């Protein structure tokens, strides 16, 4: 078991119209990628709340992929532009707080880019695998995980 390679847990937050459809195309085209990435479908990248990203790390994600429509291609015309601004700020905040932004991969994957989706996923798995498990979060004292001894105070 010890020699086994670390398999990171990666959550992908994707928009319904481009990347989700792109990932469907990856499937339809039978292109293979790692099974450790699991997709959560949002209507638009504009819907992705930064709090959800925080929750993902807190609940054991080692990496995160956020992906949506290319600029100008948003189904809702501008959701991805708004999201992009938020990420600029949020990345800055995370970085300043010592949260590893290397573990978050942002990408634009269109409905036609089945290959790109597989690449994004596989590259992110590689990158996060190299970074190792996100220990910082796992070390945080959460009451649900309190050890038997008295940690309270």
């Amino acid at each position, binding site marked *: 078991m010890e020699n086994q390679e670390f398999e990171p847990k990666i959550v992908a937050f994707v928009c319904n119209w481009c990347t989700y459809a792109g990932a469907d195309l990856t499937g339809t085209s039978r292109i293979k990628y790692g099974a450790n990435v699991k997709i959560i479908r949002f209507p638009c990248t504009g819907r992705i709340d930064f*709090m959800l990203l925080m929750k993902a790390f*807190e609940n054991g994600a080692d990496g995160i992929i956020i992906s949506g429509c290319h600029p100008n291609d948003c189904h809702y015309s501008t959701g991805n532009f708004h999201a992009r*601004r938020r990420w*600029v*700020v949020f990345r*800055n905040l995370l970085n300043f707080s010592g949260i590893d932004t290397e573990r978050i991969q942002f990408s634009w994957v269109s409905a036609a880019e089945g290959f790109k989706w597989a690449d994004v996923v596989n590259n992110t798995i590689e990158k996060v695998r190299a970074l190792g498990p996100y220990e910082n979060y796992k070390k*945080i004292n*959460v009451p649900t995980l309190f050890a038997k001894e008295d940690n309270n105070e």
Partner: protein
Amino acid sequence: MSDILINKVKQLLSDKAIDIFIGHGEGTGGRIRPIFVRTPEDAEQLIFNENCKQSWANYLLKPEVKAAGKIGMMATKHALRAMMQLASEFQIKDNEVLALYWDNNELKSSADFKEIEAYLASQNHDILPHEQEMIDKLNAMTTQERWDFWQKEYEKCIKCYACRSACPMCYCHHCAAEGNQPQWIPVASHQLGNMDWHLMRAMHLSGRCINCGACAKVCPMHIPLNLLTYNLITPIQQEFGAIAGMKHDATYALSTFKTEDKENFIL
């Protein structure tokens, strides 16, 4: 300075130009405290000196203060910026609050957004050198060092929410931290609950923080919280050209976008 202020407030109150005045007063052991003056006689308690740097803009939306009638306020630069930001978020209206402020040793009074904007445009709004130094120091650290630094700070937090209460921009009557459907932020003041709270607050203040520093000044545990929001001021200014609290009709940096916004981090 105090005398000029006292006379002005006395006059405003006796002219019924305002019903209540929020100003600086002598506190315990040399501290400055906010005082609320309703009569010309009480105006004697007002002071103004170099220690009076506090912004009282967070009182502008307090129901008991609003209920007192027309508000006048001794406004520092930060208080004026808070007013502009509040105006841009439709929380106060033009000519609603009479602000008194010092412009080159001259006590000016205005409730007019355009006048206040003109004054603000003539002022320097950079964060203080020692604050910038601290931010630079943190940014020079490794990610892990920064994580350790902040975890140590977050550990101190007792979640008294003084930061929120003192912040002029934290006026939501039902803060997201209290939302429980779902429970975004753990209520508990443990490491995770504290970190979530401070990150969320910083994010909600991004592009809105007017760098008054109240959050850090009031923290009973002396957590340098202001650095979290201050650190975002420069990138938001550089990337999006936006500074909070300068215009009463400004567009919020995160409510808008440019097609050419930075995206070098996106594959």
